């Protein structure tokens, strides 16, 4: 079970390659897809290796990617469920 | 709004123009000045440096005029009324930032105690040769307001007016003194604070969500906010839209620059302060400003003694130029006589505005002293024969 998850804002990416290079566990690689500007954004190739350290987010000069710890995601899911159940306004 | 009594040195004083200007600034609510020493203006900030620690506020002598002219603008955005003081060479250095103030609509006052130029020129002697520079010195299309006092009393009164106009129109105001007015000592009456009207900053009352730094509701002057109030606004010298964001297109440029121009031009009648005397039946009108107006008065008096019908028009406001007034006069007088301590600057405006309907006689002076009234009288006599 991965400790973290990567979120990618495809349209902001300029394919500089920093995230791919500096991810400590090599979660990412540049995809063959294009965004509307013609850049190849990264995609997750080893999701199970993501620790949610957010180094990708720290490096990204275009604010196009970030990592979050799964525990955070879980609590957001929990919050969502609580909302749906009417636990919160 | 009335003046803050802490800054008002009520009483009857014997002050020179530089000192009176400082008192005017304090009375107007200026609590920040950034300066750089330059003759003959230095006394203004020297006095401010001495006074402000006991009034509240601060003065900083910056490392050059480039710094001083922008430091004061930082202080304005930090919430203060601010000004700087200089003479020709410093005024030249400040030009970029006068343009920045015009572009960002930063209310502030630039005092130029004019001296002989060009370049280092005559540091301790008068001229009035920065008048065109005051209007056109920075690059691009922009408008400013310029006032010309002709006595230490006016250095007090009109400095307050300068600050008031700067706040009303969110524009840099040029306070065009000259070395004689700056260094002559005369009686200056400073009234009680509750008799001094000041214009407060046009601060927005809008919420953070609604506020647009350069949004105007029909009125051409946007509301202002200061740093630290939660508005998180952006200010730039780049051509910008109502959000303050850079928007470098011809359409945005057209809209912005025309508004910067029109906010002054459409209010020119309100802004133009003129002193008029004997214009009703005049054949000749002497148009003058600053110290020259006092010399011209002597010439006008002698002309009157000789039976000549001479009127006086003193430009208290030099910019925006009173096109309308000159145009009206040109239709019915024979000639204008324009003495200036320069080789012909405001006279060009008189010529332009008169549209050829009346003659314009310049009475130039290269600077370094004031006219001999004889020179002006000779021109008046010649004009009367037109």
């Amino acid at each position, binding site marked *: 079970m991965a400790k973290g998850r990567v979120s990618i804002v495809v349209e902001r990416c300029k394919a*500089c390659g920093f995230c791919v290079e500096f991810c400590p566990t090599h979660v990412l690689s540049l995809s063959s897809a294009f965004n509307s500007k013609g850049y190849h954004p990264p995609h997750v190739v080893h999701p199970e290796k993501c620790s949610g350290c957010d180094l990708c987010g720290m490096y990204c000069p275009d604010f196009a990617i970030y990592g979050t710890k799964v525990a955070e995601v879980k609590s957001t899911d929990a919050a969502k469920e609580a909302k749906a159940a009417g636990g919160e306004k | 709004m009335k003046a803050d009594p802490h800054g008002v040195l009520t009483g009857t004083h014997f002050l020179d123009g530089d000192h009176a200007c400082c008192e005017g600034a304090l009375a107007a609510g200026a609590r920040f000045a950034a300066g750089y020493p330059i003759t003959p203006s230095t006394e203004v900030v020297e006095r401010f440096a001495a006074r402000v620690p006991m009034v509240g506020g601060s003065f900083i002598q910056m490392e050059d005029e480039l710094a001083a002219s*922008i430091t004061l603008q*930082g202080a304005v955005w930090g919430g203060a009324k601010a000004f700087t003081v200089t003479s020709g060479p410093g005024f030249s250095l400040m030009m970029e930032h006068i343009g920045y103030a015009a572009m960002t609509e930063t209310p502030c006052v630039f005092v130029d105690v004019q001296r002989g130029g060009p370049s280092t020129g005559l540091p301790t002697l008068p001229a009035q040769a920065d008048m065109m520079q005051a209007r056109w010195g920075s690059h691009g299309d922009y408008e400013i307001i310029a006032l010309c006092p002709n006595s230490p009393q006016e250095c007090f009164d009109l400095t307050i007016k300068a600050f008031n106009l700067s706040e009303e129109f969110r524009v840099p105001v040029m306070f065009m003194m000259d070395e004689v007015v700056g260094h002559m000592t005369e009686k200056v009456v400073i009234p009680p604070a509750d008799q001094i009207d000041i214009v407060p900053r046009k601060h927005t009352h809008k919420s953070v969500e609604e506020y647009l730094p350069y949004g105007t509701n029909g009125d051409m002057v946007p509301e202002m906010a200061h740093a630290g109030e939660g508005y998180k606004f952006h200010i730039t010298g780049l051509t910008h839209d109502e959000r303050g964001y850079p928007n470098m297109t011809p359409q945005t440029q057209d809209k912005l620059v025309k508004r910067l121009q029109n906010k002054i031009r459409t209010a020119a009648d309100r802004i133009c302060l003129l002193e008029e005397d004997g214009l009703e039946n005049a054949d000749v009108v002497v148009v003058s400003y600053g110290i020259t107006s006092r010399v011209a008065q002597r010439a006008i008096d002698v002309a009157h003694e000789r039976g000549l019908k001479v009127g006086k028009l003193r430009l208290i406001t030099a910019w925006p130029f009173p096109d309308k007034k000159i145009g009206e006069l040109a239709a019915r007088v024979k000639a204008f006589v324009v003495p200036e301590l320069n080789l012909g600057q405001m006279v060009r405006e008189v010529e332009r505005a008169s549209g050829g309907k009346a003659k314009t006689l310049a009475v130039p002076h290269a600077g370094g002293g004031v006219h001999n009234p004889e020179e002006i009288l000779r021109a008046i006599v010649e004009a009367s024969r037109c």
Partner: protein
Amino acid sequence: MLNVVDDTINPVEPFLRTDRMPHIWCPGCGIGTTVNSFARALIDSKIDLQSLALVSGIGCTGRVAGYVKLDSFHTTHGRAIPFATGLKLANPKLNVVVYSGDGDLSAIGGNHLIHAARRNIDLKVICVNNLIYAMTGGQTAPTTPGHATTSTNPYGTFEPAFNLPHLVEAAGAVYVARWTTFHVRQLARSISEAFQKKGFSFIEVISPCPTLYQRRNKMGDGLDTMKYYKEKSKVKNGAPTSEVGLTLNGEIAVGKFVDRDRPDYQSMMRAQYVESLGDRYVEEPEMECVCG
């Protein structure tokens, strides 16, 4: 636009004017990376964003002011520091950051840089140093290393470059650090440390300009440059600043070089006035904001 599966957000997002994204910086430019570190430092230091003002000059780095959601001022070339000085003096409660480039701060702005350091004005200066005048097309900067090719030195530069940490230390800065855009976490930490200090803090960040500096000097792209930073940087905390000059492809000394204490400008001003004027000294004007 956001293809995220949950409602987590990028920690930098609240600090951005998202209505102005994507920004104009080139692929592989490091300026955006420095903004991440800056945002991280703001979060970690728990800075009150309302009382934070950011002032920049002209150039690629100068565009930071337009992209951050703070009271921000994009001023004239070289004059961010004096503008920031005015802001700070008029409202001492503001935390004022100057975020500008090497050309803006050390060439046209050089005079203001040394005077503000001398006076120890309480400013946090982040100098993104890409060793070139990038925005205008790649001209020589006072920081361009010798023998580099630029558009105004097409046959190679021959002037010695400024050693910025040395310059600002000599002028009087109380906090001097240098990192590269590879050192994202250390940079964030330095910025946080600077926020804790009163006085003139200067943090230099070496950053790629792949479009101009790196391309003209055949040094690869942004990623190649980041790898070079990783390989050739050496952390030398406390090193004498005289020894941290940069060369064309040489070692990059990084770290915190200076961290000392000296009273800041406003403390000294206050002390002097209190000593000279005693009770007559009025620190704050009665009408702080002459507002209607």
